[in-house]
């Protein structure tokens, strides 16, 4: 799998004519969205990087990208366990690796020819021999994943895809709570993620990809993703 990851490189997934993409993009957004968004979009009107695509396919590719990141991370954790890892932590972190691999492969197969390529990851900021470093990264990935799926639900058109996202997000939330608890018992749903209404976080793809970008070498182009 690591080899597969190494094959990922910054390439335009769909090789679309850039002029057409821009026309389509402005056709979709014209007059419908806030000016601030358009200004933002104009800044990055290039079609470089791996294009996630549009519509539900775009959102599924977005999820596929996040699952690739998580699966690669836990695969490395399982291959090079941090010092002092307990038997229980080994067992459950291996479970999480398998869940993330299952999610990644599910999206890959479900997307078929629409799937983005394997991504190159950059975990240079993580010290895999350190429990603190690994679990801090795991917590960040899991909380990010939960907020990403929560934010993506409304962007999906198909109720079937919404249900699939729902089936995955609660598993990510179970992971998040577990990781948080082994870092600091009782922090499974503390006020850093849950607000006064008892609600978890949701984030837009743009917010999520800005955070995830630290760990992905490949440049992801999310400019065609739905925004509402």
């Amino acid at each position, binding site marked *: 799998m690591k080899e597969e990851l190494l094959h990922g490189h910054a390439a335009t997934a769909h090789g679309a004519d850039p002029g057409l993409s821009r026309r389509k993009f402005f056709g979709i957004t014209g007059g419908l969205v806030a000016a601030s968004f358009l200004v933002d979009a104009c800044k990055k009107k290039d079609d470089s990087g791996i294009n996630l695509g549009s519509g539900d396919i775009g959102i599924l590719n977005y999820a596929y990208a996040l699952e690739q990141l998580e699966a690669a991370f836990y695969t490395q954790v399982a291959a090079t366990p941090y010092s002092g890892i307990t038997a229980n932590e080994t067992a*459950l972190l291996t*479970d999480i690796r*398998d*869940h993330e*691999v*299952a*999610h990644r*492969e*599910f999206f*890959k*197969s*479900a997307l078929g020819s629409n799937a983005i390529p394997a991504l190159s990851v950059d975990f240079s900021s993580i010290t895999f021999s350190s429990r603190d470093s690994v679990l801090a990264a795991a917590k960040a990935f899991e909380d990010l994943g*939960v907020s990403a*799926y*929560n*934010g993506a*639900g*409304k962007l999906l058109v198909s*109720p*079937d895809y*919404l*249900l*699939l996202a*729902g*089936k*995955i*997000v*609660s*598993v*990510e*939330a*179970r*992971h*998040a*709570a*577990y990781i948080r*608890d082994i870092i600091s*018992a*009782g922090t*499974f*749903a*503390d006020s850093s993620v*849950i607000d*006064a*209404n*008892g*609600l*978890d*976080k*949701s984030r837009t793809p743009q917010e999520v990809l800005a955070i995830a970008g630290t760990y992905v070498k490949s440049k992801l182009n999310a400019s065609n993703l739905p925004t*509402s």
Partner: protein
Amino acid sequence: MNLSNIINEIAKTDDEFFEKTSQRRDVIRKITRTAALTALPLALGGMFQKAYGKTTDVIIDTLNFALALEHLEAEFYKMVITTSSALVQATGGTAALNALTTIRDHEIAHVNFLTTAIQGAGGVAALKGNYDFTAGGTFADVFTNYDTLLAVAQAFEDTGVRAYKGQAGNLMGNNDILTAALNIHSVEARHASHIRQMRKARGASVKPWITLNQSGIASTAVQPIYNGEENTLQATLQITGINGTAVNANAASEAFDEPLDKAAVLAIVDPFIL
């Protein structure tokens, strides 16, 4: 009165409330809605105005179903803290008491949030009912035996996760409400994960996630909460061994939580409702 009856009553009230042919009622409705919105924080008010569309009835019914479950959970944890704090403290320690208090507070917040949301959309919010947390004697020592208490908590949390998942499609007409429901759904999953860890610490054979259709609870009464979770087929794709990976059936079932429809959820919670 059981939960299905409560929900049927609400549905009737809603129909009357939204009677379009009565001008007088229409005026009352508008006034009520305006008053409700005036009292709300700006961001929430916006959400409810958008909710007022052609699918409002479906959304209100769905939110009331969620609210009825949140009432059940909130009242359970309130009872836990009120009547069993000493037991929890003595058996599970301060950390356990803190965790159950945190969960109680979230469930109360969900009740308040959903009540406000429903009222803001012009609906009549379900009230809390009367509950029997022994489920007719099945969990007779629920408030005097720490392990039974945690087993019931796990049952409620895992049910809640499945119930929200099953209803998400009904909220697709309103982005803000759908997102809010998803934001509650993942909190219930965090709760479930923690309660399961608490049970694991007590020697129960459970993980933070659901393996196959295993409840890890001695009573067979909870089995309907876990039936179907053994599914390893997603969108016609077999997850076990997918694409030549070593993902086994246990992991494949754990990796995807499964939904429950309204009828299945009502059947599960019915023994707890008087």
